[in-house]
């Protein structure tokens, strides 16, 4: 039985290795090739984005390709929490952790990303619309009902879903999204207020631009860094909303290979079989960090290439111990007004 497991593990490892290699090749091509629309002087930023992108490769590859590499369901054929069976040991049920990790990414990242995407889209639309509405009544009508959800114990909602829909991924995603919508809406509304009341938005409206275009084309872009920063941290949290629901035993299947579930279920074995906790956690960390760094890189340090004088920032404050900080010379990656990838 053990030999078979090891062989199984080796197959999986090889698959992953091939995959990483392929992704690396693709990345190399993209790095060397011309990147359209990225202004000159942004090589550093591109490098940053690439760094983030590379971090994303293992978790995303595991989520997308894992299901093809690992059996479903993952057979329970080893000793529980055996650290030396297979490359990453086994979990409480004696299942190969590597196979679990390959199987569980799709639902973990899928649910979390879908939930956050939904929350950002819904909450964002609401928040932006509320910020841009010139009537206080419309603003109130849009935002106050959503605020109702805000103080609702998330646990109550999750447990309802867990019990009512038996933790169906779609239901969980919807619930997590519903929990995040008010926060996102309020955050983006607050962040958008200034842009929405500014002259650019007025000018656009005076050009007959549709409301949606003003909202998403201008106001939305103005709050994009805020939205990205928010969404980036929410994905990680969303995975754990599911995990926390499991932590509390709220009717989700505790034997599912979902990363959050595996982490929550194996936490007691942290010091007996660390891989069972660490492997999915590591992937999750890679995903969150990678996604955020990628977003940072793409949005660029100075996406809002402010003034025609954005360059002054380098020499500002006189902390340049004699070193010349080439303001105008580099064409400054971050002061660059065109910096919208």
């Amino acid at each position: 039985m053990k030999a078979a497991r090891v062989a199984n593990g080796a197959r999986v490892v090889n698959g992953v290795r091939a995959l990483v290699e392929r992704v690396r090749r693709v990345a190399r091509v993209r790095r060397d090739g011309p990147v359209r629309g990225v202004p000159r002087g942004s090589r550093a930023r591109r490098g940053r984005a690439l760094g983030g992108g590379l971090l994303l490769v293992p978790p995303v590859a595991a989520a997308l390709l894992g299901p093809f590499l690992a059996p479903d369901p993952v057979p329970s054929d080893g000793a529980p929490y055996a650290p030396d069976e297979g490359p990453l040991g086994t979990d409480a049920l004696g299942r190969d952790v590597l196979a679990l990790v390959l199987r569980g990414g799709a639902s973990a990242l899928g649910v979390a990303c879908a939930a956050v995407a939904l929350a950002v889209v819904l909450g964002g639309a609401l928040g932006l619309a509320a910020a841009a509405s010139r009537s206080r009544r419309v603003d109130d009508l849009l935002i106050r009902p959503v605020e109702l959800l805000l103080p609702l114990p998330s646990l109550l909602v999750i447990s309802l879903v867990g019990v009512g829909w038996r933790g169906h991924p779609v239901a969980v995603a919807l619930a997590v999204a519903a929990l995040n919508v008010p926060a996102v809406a309020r955050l983006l509304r607050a962040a958008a207020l200034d842009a929405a009341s500014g002259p650019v938005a007025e000018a656009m409206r005076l050009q007959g631009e549709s409301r949606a275009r003003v909202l998403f084309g201008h106001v939305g872009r103005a709050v994009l860094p805020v939205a990205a920063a928010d969404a980036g941290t929410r994905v990680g949290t969303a995975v754990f909303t599911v995990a926390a629901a499991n932590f509390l035993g709220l009717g989700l299947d505790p034997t599912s290979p979902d990363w959050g579930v595996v982490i929550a279920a194996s936490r007691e074995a942290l010091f007996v079989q660390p891989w069972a906790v660490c492997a999915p956690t590591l992937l999750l960390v890679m995903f969150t960090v990678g996604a955020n760094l990628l977003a940072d890189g793409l949005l660029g340090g100075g996406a809002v290439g402010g003034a025609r004088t954005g360059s002054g920032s380098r020499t500002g404050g006189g902390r340049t111990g004699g070193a010349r900080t080439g303001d105008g010379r580099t064409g400054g990656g971050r002061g660059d007004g065109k910096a919208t990838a």
Partner: protein
Amino acid sequence: MLRYTLRRCAWTVVQLAVLAVVVFALTNLLPGDAATVDFNEQAGLEQVAELRAQMGLDRPWGERLLDWAYGVAHGDLGTSLVGGGPVSGVLAASIGVTATLAAVTLLLLVPLATAVGLLTGLRAGGRTDRAVSAVTLTLTSVPDFVLALLLVAFFSLRLGWLPSTWVGVDGAWWERPELFVLPVAVLLARTVCTLSRQVRAGTIAALHSGWAVQARRLGVPRGRLVLRHVLPNAAVPGVQELARTGDQLLGGVLVVEAVFAIPGTATALVEAVQNRDVPTVQGLALALAAVACLLNLGADLVTRRLAPRTEVLR
């Protein structure tokens, strides 16, 4: 401002009323009731029915809700179905610890997150930014229970510096600051990232605006520029996030409370939900919601001050 505040307070009352109904409905939608839960693995269906009658759960829900609402209107949060004590007692017993925990966390969080956010925002794209961002992001993406276990294993079990849990701490927890170290550390790790990244995003945007450039031209030194000019503008999303964090700290630090055995509101609320103890759920949810609404109101007022141009809008 005053008009606005009053209007928002009125809204808050409406919100709380609706919320009470929603919470009631949700709690009732949960499968099982206090009686089944109370007699889980203890007794058969007949006894459960008997208990249900004794708890008054066989009355129509509308009547129960009205009763409850009448009580609340008269300052009585009702009686727990399970323990038999007043809900206000449950609330009072748990809110102190949680509020202290939240306050301590916020007290450390705000300067920390601001500093981290400003640092990363000022160095956006640089090595410091990437390193610090990666660390804070890692801290948020590690589940709190794992983080807590690791911290306990290292600081309590290996080094023996800090108590590993609150087990056995009865009263007088306020006299033992060392109890707070690990829970607050975990909470900080969870929250510092969201907040600091908002400050970071705001800082980057503000730093490149015309007025920041002009302030620099007028010789405002960097530190002052950041704190006095950039921060007020950069703080808008941060303030919203802070309000959210505050209300989460008060109501949602369940995992931390569970791991460290802190007898706080989250534990009380989850327990009440698990017990299907509707009056307690209602009372706690309402109290937490009121705090959340207040925090949001505060955040909105601050936002209005920080983006004063919006007064033109509405």
